[in-house]
């Protein structure tokens, strides 16, 4: 199990669980990142952060720091 933060661009991964608590975690789940969801790491912003993901057919951007709580396999 690794953190989403460490997934290289161009890879597709599956969410195993989401750590943390409170607003950020709820926000991430509300946006459709839930257990078992497929995430495609589409690109990294010019300055190396944040990352752009394809989730459930749309584009979502997440800071690496916030992506850290998303554990994928």
């Amino acid at each position, binding site marked *: 199990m690794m953190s989403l933060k460490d997934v290289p661009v161009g890879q597709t991964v599956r969410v195993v*669980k*989401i750590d943390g*608590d*409170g*607003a*950020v*975690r*709820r*926000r*991430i*789940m*509300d*946006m*459709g990142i*839930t*257990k*078992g*969801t497929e995430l495609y790491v589409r*690109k*990294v*912003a*010019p*300055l*190396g*952060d*944040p990352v*752009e993901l394809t*989730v*459930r*057919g*749309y*584009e*979502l*951007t*997440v*800071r690496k*720091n*916030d992506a850290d709580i998303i554990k994928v396999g």
Partner: protein
Amino acid sequence: MALKFALAGNPNCGKTTMFNALTGSNQYVGNWPGVTVEKKEGKMKGKFGSSDTIVTDLPGIYSLSPYTLEEVVSRDYILGENPDVIIDLVDATNIERNLYLTTQLIETGVPVVIALNMADLLKKRGIRVDTERLGSILGCEVVPTSALRGEGLDKLAKQAAITGAENSHALPPEIFSKELEAAIKNVEMILPASIPQQKRRWYAIKILENDSKVSAQLSLSDSQLKVIAAERAAIEKKEDSDMESIVTDARYAFIQKAVKAAVKKSGEKLTTSDKIDQIVTSRIFGIPIFVGIMFLVYYLSINSMGGFFTDWINDVATPWVQEAVSNGLTALHANSVFISAISNGVIGGLGAVLGFTPQMAFLFLFLSILEDCGYMVRIAFVMDRVFRHFGLSGKSFIPLLISSGCGVPGIMSSKTIDQDNDRRLTIMTATFIPCGAKLPVIALMGGIITSYSVTGKFTAGGWMAPMMYFVGIAAVLISAVMLKKTKPFSGKAAPFVMELPQYHIPQPKTVLMHVWERLKAFLKKAGTVLFLATLVMWFLSSFGVEGGRFGLVDTPNSSVLAAIGGAIAVIFRPLGFGEWQPVAATISGFTAKESIVSTMGVLAHVASDASEDTAVVGQAIASWFPSAAAAFSFLLFNLLDSPCLAAIGTMAAEMNDRKWFWFAILYQNVFAYVSSLIVYQLWILPANGFTAWTAVAVVLLIIMLYLLFRPDPYKNMKTYSKRSVTEAA
């Protein structure tokens, strides 16, 4: 009886467009998440049904969680104000995530009609939706619409009226596991009797999720809470997860099933939007493209396209009108004071301001295009890293960018920033970015500065505009770093989780409407506040005490304005503009920034005795500034000090706290003063040698550098700053 429709949906799904189409009002539409921050009401157009029907546009939300201002506003409205029907807009091209909100809306006990919006794009994307099937799974009617093309709206309004009138409380589908459904039933039973049957499911789920706001609202007894906690614990243990995840997972699992049954996709392929995005926000080209676009926007609006029309108004139209009016009035044997008041005061002053209307129109046009096509939100993506380095979120960038058009909507859009500290910081610093009204000042002073350094004579210079834009950003970032290291602004960096909507070709109607709305506000201001301001300024500069008697004065130096300006000018002498005219102009700038120019215009006309040539007026204005450094310092001060009254009023409303508001005003003016002093004194150092003021400048600079580079005492803060969600309730 009049029906109440509530429009709900995800941000950026065409909700405001739908609202405008249904009500005929001209609400502003943008292509970034969170344009509608407050709810708006309108009466439905007669052609869609009963014109008594009230339509409420709720803020765009992804969920009914208790964490953001928008979500709380929306759910309070739906549960507290009892609309007859919710029209739930679902973006057909992004159906999975949009239906997530739907699964929550159908639990609120208010009948729901789904508008499957952007249905016209489905065919192009090769998506087929079986609306009947989808409706039967979700337990509500589904009407395909295209708000933009006005398709399906008749049917939607008719269906909403029927559903609202029926007021049937069909229970929503059971979407959770057997155990969870049983727990919901148990909790429903112990809820207070005051909650109507059809709303019980929503409350039960929320309270199982441990929603603090709902718990507080219901004031349950200890024994009731114990029962709920036990139900929650049993399920959490069985699923080996927490309740929020269990509920969210189940909702999405239900949606996936529904989508599988009712939606057919024929192979995913890269859309044009994806292809554009690959280049525009790529690692290599992202930043150069951003800088290039911003430079182009400013260059085109100020220099080439806008500049052309501005020159024409200033050099041809205004003098022509002045002469015509002046001749006409002379022919009528009007009083010479009156002629001077009209020709020099009103027409001269307003002409100076109206002359910049084309530049502003072009700037608004370009910004609207950037907003509408979806690039604005990409800027937050590209720039977030930079902003985070300075302790702000990329989200702060949107208010700053809008402020480059006008500070008022810029400050208002800061509402989408969740954390209190970041929001306050953004409100305080947003107006450092030169707004449309400061452009005339920049153009005028830019001309004066170039005339000193390059050409030796006055030419209207626009190359200053892009530069002042970057100076504004620098001021924001410097302030952010300094303030972030103080206690009230400290806190963990705000989370950054944001949707990047698809690019689309800007809609001419939306863009032009937006430009017109902003221009109209400006012209209205020109017709009222500025009209009065120019008259007052003309009076103050033309009348005074001369030869022991009050009356029309021969030289403006003995005017009332000169006396007032002269008294205050002492304060500004260290900044290089100690003449009374620039000081008087600065004061008038607090009514509206563009009146700095009109005031200078009035003063220069008076001084040069009604010469209408821009170059002569420019020369007259230039004579108030001893050097390019002084002119620049004046420009810098007027760029950074407190904004115009309209923006100050907005700041007060958005801060919603008197102490913070006054702190913001104080900070802006002190920061403006100190920055201008440092720049001016160090600029003239080589020429003038070391003086006491140089020492002051150096000390201030050292203090500023210390505040900038000292280690952050709150660096390891683990907690987020407070969110004033309660304020919205």
